[in-house]
């Protein structure tokens, strides 16, 4: 049931994370370095959620962290890494190479079409033929089909209906209407494709304000909504804040140092038994956060974010 028609969706972060159940297929919103629901992910780690399957497009620290904390049994993402910024995702790479997580190769557009099928209420969608690429081999999500009208050879992809979409937005209201700032990536599609949708927002405000900004996800698609300032940290949530390159550099450094170091110096220090308030205090002082929120003071201030 994607639809949830009550008019009070507000819960605590703890309750929001409980909407995700062990064994669920999750679809995480945002992409790369932007607007990932990391407070929710940290809370899932604290609660010891397990055996999850993560599906989606091009992601970074979210998937790397979930893999490091052992929540995932499988990963079906088109890309996991830190681009030109920090290169490969160290935990993801390590656990993959050790065989500690199942990798299902995929592609942004394939994921998109598979989610679309779920969103359209059909068990498959056709695409113009894709062939010659190895992700197709033995993959049960693909079939070769003939167009029933033209006979043309097409690729059929199987619908992928996540159990839960996890999304971080800028503002939301009590009924569950959510405003996402641009870029949206696949978030709108996740909300219609998934059976449940859990949202964190920087701030819960009156319906009028969300409407004025623009409702990106209407209330009836939202299962639960929690307020969590800096809920996307260390990824960006413009216009509230840019990404925290200093923290990500620290993250990557600890991840590269290996499993034990990362467990002790990152997972234990920043996530386990640490409240979100404490997490933010450990990340940096007021001046540090002022730099992240101060990107809009001009091009020089914005460049500073990327120079850290």
């Amino acid at each position, binding site marked *: 049931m994607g639809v949830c028609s009550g008019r009070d969706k507000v819960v605590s972060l703890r309750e929001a994370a409980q909407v995700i159940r062990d064994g669920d297929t999750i679809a995480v919103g945002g992409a790369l370095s932007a607007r990932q629901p990391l407070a929710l992910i940290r809370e899932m780690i604290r609660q010891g959620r397990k055996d999850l399957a993560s599906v989606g497009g091009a992601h970074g620290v979210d998937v790397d962290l979930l893999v490091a904390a052992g929540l995932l049994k499988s990963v079906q993402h088109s890309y996991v890494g830190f681009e030109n910024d920090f290169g490969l*995702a160290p935990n993801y790479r390590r656990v993959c190479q050790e065989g500690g997580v199942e990798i299902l*190769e995929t592609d942004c557009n394939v994921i998109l079409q598979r989610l679309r099928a779920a969103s359209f209420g059909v068990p498959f969608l056709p695409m113009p033929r894709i062939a*010659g690429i190895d992700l197709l081999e033995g993959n049960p999500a693909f079939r070769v089909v003939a167009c029933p009208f033209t006979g043309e050879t097409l690729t059929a992809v199987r619908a992928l209906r996540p159990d839960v979409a996890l999304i971080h937005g800028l503002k939301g209201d009590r009924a569950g209407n959510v405003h996402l700032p641009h870029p949206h990536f696949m978030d709108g599609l996740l909300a219609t494709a998934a059976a449940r949708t859990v949202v964190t927002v920087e701030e819960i405000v009156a319906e009028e304000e969300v409407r004025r900004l623009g409702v990106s996800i209407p209330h009836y698609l939202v299962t639960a909504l929690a307020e969590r300032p800096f809920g996307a940290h260390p990824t960006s949530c413009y216009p509230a804040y840019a990404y925290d390159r200093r923290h990500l550099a620290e993250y990557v450094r600890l991840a590269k140092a290996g499993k034990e170091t990362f467990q002790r110096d990152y997972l234990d220090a920043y996530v386990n038994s640490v409240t979100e308030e404490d997490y933010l205090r450990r990340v940096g002082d007021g001046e540090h956060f002022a730099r992240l929120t101060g990107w809009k003071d001009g091009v020089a201030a914005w460049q500073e974010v990327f120079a850290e």
Partner: protein
Amino acid sequence: MRAYCTVDELMAVALARTIEDHAVVFNGVAVALPYLAILLAQKTHAPNCVFLAGLPAGVDPHPPFLPPTAGDALLLQAAVVTLPLHEIFDLAQRGELDRSFLGGGQIDRHGNLNNAWIGCDGMRVRLPGGAGAGSLSCFARKFTVWSGRHRGNGRSTLVERVDFITTVGHDTPAGSRSALHLKGGGPDRVVTDLCTFDFSGGEMRLKTLHPGISLTCVLGNMGFQPRIPGSLVQTPPPTAEEIQIIRRLDPLKVRQREFSPRQLERKFPVA
């Protein structure tokens, strides 16, 4: 005084020159070089090029500077509009995407790329994944392949056979592009830190050598023998204007991050 540029700048210009005016061009995850190339092309020889910019899916953005991550809202700045991501793939599926830029962790003679796994069994290295390149390589009318890791990687980038095909070129073990009935035309250009290639009969053919680079150097850093035309020319040098535009577009020098300090020591003349 003679002006010089570095390998990242030479490559950005060479990539830009693969863009025709009026082309509809997309680039996704890997940021610096293709983004610079497209922005540069729009400001020089391809003013009617339509730029669909990365995952934020901005149309014709004018970022005040280039970020090291394609998830950043910088790639929407002053854009005509922000599209839903799916509209870009729909356009590609309709056969209306003229050119994409696809980087390869491994590249073979047919232009197949690998960004998934390198090595076999006991010694595998996990790469980030192909992002949207699998689909795009099937649908885009043409695409430009690029790598800044031709030199000094022990023939491990340009290889006889890629370990895993994330991105389809002109021929694969499953059959040729035409036998596979793919919509798109495949790669037509490869730009590396040493040279550029085009394709002939579905195989990579050396086209130009970067200034100061010998044929021996190019072949010595490759795991296969490319086709070689009768006469080899030098990669045309960037103009002073092109280099100036690049440096203005990318004040943080994000373009240099994928190169080693040694690579960046090389100087190339500016026309």
